[in-house]
């Protein structure tokens, strides 16, 4: 494991500490280090590092820059909602707060470069300065000039500075249409199953043996590996479920070496965790509490998505039902469903539908207000007057996001809507008003 990083110009002891903190990332760290060169050498103007989430991009850079005590500024593009914050942060960490206070009220790139040059001439760089931009994909949404300028910052400020961009997204999606200075692309590959096992096994519980913990990790990976390769998520799940895994051991039912029994105990539990904790249906705290309560079955607690029941007024329920029917039934079938004397429609003709284009596959279709009201009057048994309250209920359904208005161009005259609720939801609603909605749905005939 300790294939030591070697590079002239850096302290051996520090490099050893770096290598210890970067399991399974020696190759990438070594490559980065060799690209950085010795501290006083010029490095490549911009480096773009991409890789999956939790593949150690920030961690490797952080450890390298921190342990080797290199001059650097780490900027998260999520935090920097305006370029002013970005500039301030960079100047602050390179030249102290005096330089940052020189920035005018709403600084442009030109101001930043001017102040940078000023400061640089006062305190010239003896070492390469690094600017690390995390979540660099957000740079694309800000000012169009920002990304190309950052990529050639070394040339613009005439200083020994290197910009390192970190992102999950490949470089091809970044390139501006008139081109730019191409950064050096580095890929951080995903951890393989063995590497995940090795890293996860590191934070074992001190009161249990290493083999015991690594067999637990093995089982955990067996369940989750096909769905999730995110190291952080796996670490979280491992920490959450470990107490359940140890349970039979503490009760004295099995020995540490009896892996099969332990597996039998934990596997259904982990499968349940995938449907609950992994999807954040149940919070981690609730999950831990559930594990403590023996008698209560895990998952019996209602998760977030179980709270779909919404209490609505009577007419609003019918309006929503009518909207659902209007969205998922084609308009030509309305006559058949909602008219008492609809004349003769040949059944074969009516039922001739295209199997491929089921509406529950394609999603809701937009419908005009007239059609909604017509269906509403026919599904509500009693006579309803088209009062202002009915119309205000429609617009309040829109604000509740149970309906969505499709076209914005016409607010009053003939607006179009779409129904934005799921089948389960509408079935629950129609059950409360004793309406059998499935009978009226074209897809389920």
């Amino acid at each position: 494991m300790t294939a030591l990083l070697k590079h002239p110009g850096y302290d051996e002891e520090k490099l050893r500490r770096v290598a210890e903190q970067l399991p399974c990332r020696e190759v990438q760290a070594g490559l980065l280090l060799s690209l950085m060169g010795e501290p006083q050498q010029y490095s490549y103007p911009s480096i773009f590092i991409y890789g999956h989430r939790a593949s150690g991009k920030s961690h490797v850079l952080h450890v390298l820059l921190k342990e080797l005590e290199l001059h650097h500024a780490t900027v998260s593009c999520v935090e920097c909602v305006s370029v002013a914050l970005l500039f301030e942060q960079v100047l602050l960490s390179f030249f102290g707060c005096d330089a940052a206070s020189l920035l005018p009220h709403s600084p442009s790139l030109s101001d930043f470069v001017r102040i940078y040059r000023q400061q640089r001439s006062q305190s010239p760089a003896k070492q390469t300065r690094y600017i690390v931009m995390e979540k660099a994909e957000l740079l694309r949404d800000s000012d169009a000039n920002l990304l190309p300028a950052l990529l050639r910052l070394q040339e613009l400020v005439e200083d020994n500075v290197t910009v390192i961009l970190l992102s999950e997204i490949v470089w091809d999606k970044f390139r501006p249409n008139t081109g730019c200075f191409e950064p050096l692309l580095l890929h951080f590959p995903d951890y393989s199953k063995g590497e995940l096992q090795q890293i996860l096994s590191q934070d074992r519980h001190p009161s249990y043996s290493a083999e015991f913990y690594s067999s637990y990790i093995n089982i955990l990976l067996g369940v989750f590996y096909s769905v999730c390769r995110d190291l952080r998520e796996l670490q979280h799940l491992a920490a959450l479920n470990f107490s359940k895994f140890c349970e039979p051991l503490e009760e004295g039912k099995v020995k540490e070496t009896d892996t099969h029994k332990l597996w039998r105990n934990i596997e259904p539990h982990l499968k349940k965790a995938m449907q609950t904790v992994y999807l954040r249906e149940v919070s981690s705290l609730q999950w831990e509490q559930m594990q403590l309560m023996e008698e209560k079955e895990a998952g019996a607690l209602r998760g977030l998505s179980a709270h779909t029941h919404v209490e609505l007024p009577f007419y609003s329920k019918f309006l929503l039902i009518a909207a659902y029917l209007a969205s998922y039934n084609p308009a030509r079938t309305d006559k058949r469903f909602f008219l008492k004397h609809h004349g003769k429609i040949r059944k074969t003709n009516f039922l001739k539908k295209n199997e491929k284009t089921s509406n529950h596959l394609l999603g809701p279709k937009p419908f005009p207000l007239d059609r909604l009201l017509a269906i509403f009057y026919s599904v509500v048994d009693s006579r309803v007057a088209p009062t202002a309250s009915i119309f205000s209920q429609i617009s309040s359904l829109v604000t509740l996001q149970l309906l969505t208005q499709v076209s914005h161009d016409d607010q009053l005259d003939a607006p179009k809507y779409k129904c934005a609720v799921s089948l389960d939801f509408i079935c629950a609603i129609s059950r409360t008003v004793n309406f059998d909605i499935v009978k009226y749905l074209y897809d389920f005939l």
Partner: protein
Amino acid sequence: MSKRKVKDVHRPIGECITQVCINLFSCSFDFQTHNSLHLLELLRRSAIQGESNSVLIVGPRGAGKTMLLQCVLRDLLQEKEAQKNLLQVHLNGLLQTDDRIALKEITRQLNLENVVGDKVFVSVQTEYYEQILENKTAEKSPGDRSSSRPVLFVLDEFDLFAHHKNQTLLYNLFDVSQSAQTPIAVVGVTCRLDVLELLEKRVKSRFSHRQIHLLSSFGFSEYLQTVRTQLSLPDDFPDRGFAQDWNSSVQTLCEDKSVEEALQRHFNSSKDFRSLHMLLMLCLSRLSVSKPSIKPADLLDASRLCLCDAKANMLHGLSILELCLIIAMKHLNDVYEGEPFNLQMVHNEFKKFLQRKSNSMYNFEQPVVMKAFEHLQQLELIRPVDGSSAKTQREFQLMRLMLDHSQIMEALQKYPQCPTDVKQWAMSAFG
């Protein structure tokens, strides 16, 4: 080989990253010397004889436009008279994004802040420019020279200046160069070949239509020659013996067949020197005390690193569920000929596969599938057809696959421990 000598190699490595090209490029090609002579003559006439000129340097990215300009300026400034006279203003389209900022920058670079003071010239800008230039002249004129000092304007990323409102800056600069007494030279540097089409008619008519095109018109043998000269150590290297060893090792490197093939591949994909620099930089970074010369294997490794497909790399790290979804999308694309799809359709397709295979191993719930689907969207491997994401439900939002058929198949081949039934499913023509 002593350690000191090897350390000596390292110093140029660090410098070559940005500065290696300074003395190598401008003289190594005939076409560039021709261009540089042309430009030098032009600028000298401005600097010394007081002509007003304007010129555009056009060429693709990495073709040495800035390098050419820098060399010419360096040569020009070696002449005493030019050095004494010439004022320089460097503007960059990336930094000076509008005319107000550009004006400030011009004032600053001409050291006129104290002269102009708080006076605001908004209404008639041409007068402002003339005033600025006059001021500069006035500052000087109490002396012996009656004529004014020439100013050289260098506009980097010239095409971005053409996007300013009304192109006021360009109009004024060209207008001053056409009419006023103050001699100015305007040099625009751009990578757009159609840059003249961007200019307004009145601006275009004031431009002298002098263009210098830097198109890289050289063959592979010259390319190989450049690689050699780029890598070679100069004669004034402190350790003569090491420099000779190094240069001969570079010579043998360039004669290697496999190296030549790799370089040919790079040459075929692009001729610009920046990509070549990136390659050489990656090679040079592998040098160490124990390995003081470049081996062919280093160059091949670096070449592989440069040419690898980024999307294939990302596909390699997907989970098996996400890969299955991508295969389902591929089938949908094949069947419906590139129509957009939503999550429901993809899941439906995936369920059909599971039913046929009757392998309950991948029987995931809808929310788990949705999480995988959203991860794919975050990676921008799929993209919504219309940007408005809040309007429709997540499972019915129409998406498009941003991957190629061949990319998927290749990724599938490289995927570690790919289950056989998934592979077969991907191969089968009918989902």
